[in-house]
């Protein structure tokens, strides 16, 4: 029976076959609305997933490639230990560059916390060394051991400690987004199945007349499947367009880089939106097909 439901004839349609099932205004509008509302929600779930995915990648990328060495030493040893640390670092495989921050740079880092007038010279401020890794990265444990021997006041911070939970949180958020999309899809299938069942029940007489005059199951099913698939497709297209427009209107503030303001689509993300109506169509096609087969199978 499924061979009768081939896709091309479904899309091309058959004006005559379409007329066989009487138009039903109410279920048609409900299906359109449900598909539209679900597509609208999907747009936001998708935006959430994509944004948290981007966030996780960005945190990962930006933080993974750099680490910091902090040297706390008595003032007279500071210069010697810094030099020793730099020697160790430049000799370590996996580190592409190491640079001691200047006093001005350290002051600007501290400024947000202590104000610009901090008398940095008179305070025992640790020296910071910025380490930029190569793609392969370095062996953190080995480096720590070497530093311990040669620069006793050095503390290596490779950021993994606080990067990991952030990445994990972003990953979870993305997972939640996909779960939401899955649930929305399932709910759409459920609603369309209910609407299709209602339409099939309301048209029991039509179906029995059609069977009587020799219509095959596939012909009868196609009349319903086509109708619901097109409705879902259309409703979802409108819902997606409205959702995309709403996302587009969200205020964006790239520089401050907050999470909520990053909620949107970039590049290929917009292309993903086009898949929403198609998926809704597929869901409706499968759901209505199953409902029609079930109903027809129960008839003699």
């Amino acid at each position, binding site marked *: 029976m499924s061979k009768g439901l081939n896709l091309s004839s479904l899309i091309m349609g058959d004006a005559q076959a379409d*007329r066989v099932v009487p*138009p039903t205004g109410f279920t048609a509008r409900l299906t359109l609305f449900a598909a539209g509302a679900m597509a609208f929600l999907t747009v936001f779930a998708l935006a959430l997933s994509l944004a948290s995915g981007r966030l996780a990648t960005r945190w990962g990328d930006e933080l993974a490639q750099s680490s910091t060495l902090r040297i706390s030493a008595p003032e007279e040893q500071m210069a010697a230990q810094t030099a020793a640390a730099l020697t160790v670092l430049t000799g370590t495989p996996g580190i592409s560059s190491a640079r001691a921050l200047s006093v001005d740079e350290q002051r600007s880092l501290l400024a947000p916390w202590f104000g610009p007038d901090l008398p940095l010279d008179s305070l025992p401020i640790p020296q910071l060394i910025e380490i930029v890794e190569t793609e392969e990265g370095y062996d953190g444990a080995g480096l720590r051991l070497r530093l311990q021997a040669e620069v006793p006041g050095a503390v290596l911070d490779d950021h993994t400690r606080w990067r990991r939970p952030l990445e994990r949180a972003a990953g979870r958020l993305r997972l939640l987004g996909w779960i939401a999309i899955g649930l929305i899809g399932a709910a759409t299938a459920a609603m369309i199945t209910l609407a299709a069942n209602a339409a099939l029940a309301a048209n029991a007489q039509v179906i029995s*007349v*059609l*069977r009587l005059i*020799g219509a*095959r199951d596939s012909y009868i099913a196609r009349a319903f499947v086509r109708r619901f698939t097109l409705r879902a497709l259309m409703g979802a297209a409108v819902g997606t367009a409205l959702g995309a427009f709403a996302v587009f209107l969200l205020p964006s503030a790239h520089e401050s880089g907050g999470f909520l303001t990053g909620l949107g689509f970039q590049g290929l993300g917009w292309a993903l939106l086009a898949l929403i109506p198609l998926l809704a169509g597929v869901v409706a096609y499968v759901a209505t097909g199953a409902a029609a087969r079930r109903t027809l199978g129960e008839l003699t």
Partner: protein
Amino acid sequence: MIELDNIAYSYGGGELLSEVSLKLAPGSFHFLTGPSGSGKTTFLKLCYGALSPTAGQVQLFGKDVREMDREDHAMTRRQIGVVHQDCQFLDHLSVRENVALPLTVASKDSLEQHSNLKELLTWVGLGHRASALPPELSGGERQRAALARAVIMSPDVVLADEPTGNVDWEMSQRLLQLLVELNKMGKTILIATHDLNLIRSAKHHVQARVLRISGRKLQLAGADL
């Protein structure tokens, strides 16, 4: 084409038909009669595969009904035209579209069929009612529309269940005449009716055999009633 071999049919409780055998020869004209509730409609349903016998064997065009799937049934119904007692139509389509429906669902809609359709509607006297909707038709018009729909696929067999049940004498004569004409064109006809006058009047036009259901059995009634 339709063969019943020692079949029985029983509902949950009692047996309605038993030891029924019949072979409908091509081109034959049969009446099926019997009191109300004797199983005429059930018998017709067995003849076009809407029901399966509880015992015995029914063969439609050489195929055992029990071995036919839904697809086979759909195909068989294109070869057997059925006129029901309460003929059902698609009420949102015009008479013309309803009569052409078997062609539509078989994807045999063509221009050539279109002129056939017009001819057919004129033949059953519904040429002027082609654009009407089924609920607007009178009882006789419905029966004639159902007959037109039953024969548009040019089936080999036409089964009619009380085709004259809801119409006056004049109209029943007209329907009978249409069925007789079909028989002369080579179709096999089986009409279930309790109207003995109808059977008598048919005797003048056609060589008809009369089957009677009586006491759960099918009997060939005498040539004269």
